[in-house]
């Protein structure tokens, strides 16, 4: 009955101890489903900016925005729903137990999909991928398929900002 949709919010928060706990605690305590949350200091060191991705229905989404707004620690909430944004996620894929042919394959994939090989040694290759979350999912699926049980994945969660001339959505 409820229509679930992926959403993205940006929030300026006080750069203080406990604020991340406050926001993640709000989501956990109120049973909101959080997909990714990234946070880092902004151009103003007293403020941090959070990018929050979540999946929920319209009514819950309205509540989440309101609950964020009423938190004293939250300075400003930007709802990205109807905005053009640039949104990327940093993804590392490490492929282990590589033979020479595997390495060549990885370099070929990197070239095809515009990924960066940023490190390697005799046995392993580390690939960096900066794309949208859904494209990163595709890359992980591809590597999983080609290098079964040999990959290690670390992903950073989305960061998003209002777009200028070109947007990711």
């Amino acid at each position: 009955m409820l229509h679930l949709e992926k959403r993205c919010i940006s929030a300026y928060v006080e750069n203080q101890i406990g604020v991340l706990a406050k926001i993640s605690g709000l989501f956990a305590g109120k049973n909101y489903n959080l997909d990714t949350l990234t946070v880092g200091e902004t151009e103003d060191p007293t403020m941090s900016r959070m990018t929050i991705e979540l999946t929920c229905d319209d009514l819950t989404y309205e509540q989440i925005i309101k609950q964020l707004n009423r938190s004293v620690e939250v300075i400003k909430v930007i709802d990205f729903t109807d905005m053009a944004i640039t949104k990327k996620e940093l993804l590392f894929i490490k492929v282990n137990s590589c033979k020479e042919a595997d390495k060549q394959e990885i370099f070929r994939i990197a070239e095809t999909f515009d990924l960066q090989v940023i490190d390697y040694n005799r046995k392993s290759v580390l690939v960096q991928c900066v794309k949208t979350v859904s494209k990163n999912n595709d890359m992980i699926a591809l590597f999983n398929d080609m290098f079964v049980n040999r990959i290690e994945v670390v992903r950073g969660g989305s960061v998003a900002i209002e777009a200028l001339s070109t947007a990711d959505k």
Partner: protein
Amino acid sequence: MISGAAYVVKALQEEGVEYLFNYPGAATIDIMDELYKQDMVKVILPRHEQALAHAADGYARSTGKVGVCMVTSGPGATNLVTGIATAYADSVPLVCLTGQVDLSLMGNDAFQEVDTVGIVRNICKYAITVRDRKDLGRILKEAFYIARTGRPGPVVVDIPKNIQKTMGSDAYPTEVNIRGYKPNETVHVGQIKKACSIIAKAKRPLFLLGGGVSISGANVLMTELVDRTGIPVVTTLMGKGAISSRHPLYLGNVGIHGGYAPNVALTDCDVMISIGTRFNDRITGKLSTFAQNTKIIHIDVDAASISKNIKVDIPIVADAKLAIEKLLEYLEPQDLKDWPSQLQELKEKEPVTQSYIEGLTPERVIQYINDHYEKPIVATDVGQNQLWTTQFLEVEGNQQLLTSGGLGTMGYGFPAALGAQMGNPKARVFAICGDGGVQMNIQEFATAMHYKLPVTLIVLNNGFLGNVRQWQQLFYDKHYACTNLLMDESAMVTRESIDNGEFDYVPNFVQLAEAYGAQGIRVTKIDELEGAFKKADQFKKGPTLIECIIPTELNVMPMVPAGKSLSDMILKDKK
């Protein structure tokens, strides 16, 4: 240059704090020493931190001022938690100062260390640890501001011991500027006009008033608005007193223990103007059938309370008082034909009453208060005692009925009444409790004696944890699991056993009151009530306990069973 401890006391003085509800401990001893050297802020010592928080809460609700608590770190703070959550659920302004171990020891599992802010973060309006002496003034100033403005609520300031000892400036800030907190101080006139045009066209409009009307002190204006428009009024449990419960257009409380007429009104109205309520599940019953064909106008100071449970047609984010002032500008007298009189007839036909039951009943006890005291302050505990009180007590305005409506905290009533008596020394203050809840903070007899608080504590004793027992009786085949408090767990209090003087309960409340030096009176018959209340009126050196023995199987009626619609209500107890 003054110490952090001296600065805290200075801040309390600057904020005009009259009473500090304080329980001592190692992590606040420096502040207590500074309090000892002054007499502007009076320090009250309750006997348990939970009771302390409820006393500050009762003080705050009954005066409209900020209640101020101070406890030590660790167990002092954890004991305060229930009181903080209680105040948060009912939007009560508290500032809670908690001692903390030295910053350098935090995280080391030091003696009496807990992560206080981590524990209370989700049950208060704002919580912060002071990490730098130079921030102390700003944080305290902000704490009082956040607690009392917007939708009020408790604020916790955790102060490590080393901050209390650090010397720093004695200047107290004069202004507050919090970039993430700007309470709404205006009303959107466009929304008000839209609301008014809908109200003007309504055939069956209804005011649903919640606790927000009383918190904003809009009771007089609200009464004026009701008088002007002729629109009938129902209230939530927290909203009782929004207008006088004796007002001819007042129908009663709605919700799962509301009256028949108010719930019918809620179901049948075509336009609902709800002010200062969050449509809690106790009000709506089954959500999908609630007010299906009704246009809802919702006024609340907290945007997050609007459209949280019920989708509304006209949301208005504003303080109740400001919004009501605006409604008064635009609303005219309305011709509602026989809608108000129909509801009044319904109220008379199906009254909320226990008059069909013989002998001493909660209604008769509360009726005595209605008939003999002008504007008393009444605090309730939680359970049947609370529901009966909110059903039968006549309430004239705000700051008069104190009850834990949101969280439903047992043990609230007695300490809240003590706090209310401190804040209102001339008022007649009652606590109405059950035999279960009163034992959760019974130690406060000592506090009441110590400060000579002439509160009358009425214990409606039915030998059981009555509200749960009522559910067990009606929906769990009378499996009275864990609800019997009588000595003999197979026994029950009946009219017959009361008349025969068979009542084996532990403790003996009358003797317990006397052990504290208080007055204790047991009442089993209607004609003993007057004598008991008169004795209570005359006893000034401390509280009087009036224990009213009532039958176990006396239920709170009407009621809407869990998960059912308001129209499925059970009206009367089976005989």
